[in-house]
């Protein structure tokens, strides 16, 4: 039948397009491009043991992960401390790139910002970081980094 032929042709074109791109997926607002070899703006809100406030910036499991991630993309971290609510509002306005506050995936903020896939599960709570919505290249990069650090994270959360 004619239309089936068109459909197969169309599928072929679409798949060709998908496989021909090197940096896939991309960011609508080019977040990954900006922070690589640049500045990664991270908001943090204290929530031990995930984020612990200190004299020289935050420490804790999530803060250390962010530092290592920044290093992996050759970025300088610019820390900003505030309440979780203010930070997530700044993230929504694209004034921050990333927020850590010991967040879990059942937080009600989901529709305005995005969460990474859970990087660890402790006491049935799935822990996530908050990123700008739809910045898929950046999200994929971060999620992939967190996945590679899985055993490191597991070791740290063990009591």
């Amino acid at each position, binding site marked *: 039948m004619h239309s089936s032929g068109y459909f197969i042709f169309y599928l072929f074109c*679409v798949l060709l397009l998908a496989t021909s791109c090197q940096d896939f997926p991309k960011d609508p607002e080019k977040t990954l491009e900006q922070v690589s070899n640049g500045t990664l703006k991270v908001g943090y809100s204290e929530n031990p043991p995930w984020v612990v406030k200190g004299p020289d910036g935050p420490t804790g499991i999530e803060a250390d992960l962010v530092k290592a991630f920044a290093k992996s993309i050759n970025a300088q971290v610019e820390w900003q401390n505030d309440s979780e609510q203010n930070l997530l509002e700044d993230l929504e306005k694209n004034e921050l790139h990333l927020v850590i506050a010991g967040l879990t995936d059942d937080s009600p903020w989901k529709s305005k910002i*995005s969460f990474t896939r859970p990087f660890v599960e402790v006491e049935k709570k799935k822990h996530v970081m908050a990123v700008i919505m739809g910045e898929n290249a950046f999200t994929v990069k971060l999620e992939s980094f967190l996945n590679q650090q899985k055993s490191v994270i597991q070791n740290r959360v063990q009591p």
Partner: protein
Amino acid sequence: MKQVSRFEYPEELQPVFKKAKKLEWITVGYLITTSIVVFLTMGNSQAMKTAWFEDILSLTPSISFLIASRVFHKKPNKNFPYGYHRVVSIAYLCSALALFSVGGFLIYDSVHTLLKQEHPTIGIKVIFGHEIWLGYLMIAAMLYSTIPAMILGRMKLPLAKQLHEKNLYTDADMNKADWMTGAAAIPGIIGIGMGWWWADSVAALLISLDIIKDGYTNLKQAVFDLMDQIPKTVDDQETDPLLNQIEHKLKGQSWIKEHAFRMREEGHIYSGEAFLVPHDQNGQLTQQIEKLLQEVRDLDWRIQEFTIMPVRKLPQNGAEEN
């Protein structure tokens, strides 16, 4: 009390009906698996949530067909002297409403996403230790919900016409809606990968216009059928040419001076009554009417109940004037 005769499909249509039932069982099974696949790949993507909701809704026509097909051929009884044919029209109404809702839901969702400028986030999924972009999995899920739906829909169309099954026809439209949304979602997801956050919603919006048009046409027809509109064909909703044949038959009788008739659709079948003024009474009237009745019924299996009423003068407002 006189009950209408029990309805069964004529012998030559029995295998067609069996095939339709089999196709609908396959459709139900297939749609359940697609909704599971879509559910597993949806992550926190709103677009995939819509696709999942739509999969659930699109079960309506096939399920209502299967339910109706167990009921409509039941023997008429004291409580239901006209039989159970109308259940087909009710099933048709349910299916049409589901199709219309799928279209409406898609429009609402994509317009909402575009206005709020919600950028869809699609991250990674880890399968057996391998990281894979969830977008690729979504595309695979969409392919699975596209190609079989296309084949099933194509197979149902000729059966729907033969069986005069508008519900089955709507289900074929629903399959078309399924594969079109799937086919539109694939470039939509790739568009998101290209950094075009609006791609998925624009693709969905274009498709939803087509679905809502099909949904509206069927919904209107389902309501009109229940309101006893004159019978319409299954595929293009035109007045059934069978009515012309009946008119022709009545006109061809030399013993009839004047006549008028009306018909309505009850699920698969038509019923109606004719009023006629005979030329002169020759004592043969009863035989002539019986013979004519048989001839009209022999025109098509769909004419299930036809009543002929001899009168001295045609009723003024009762019947359709021809």
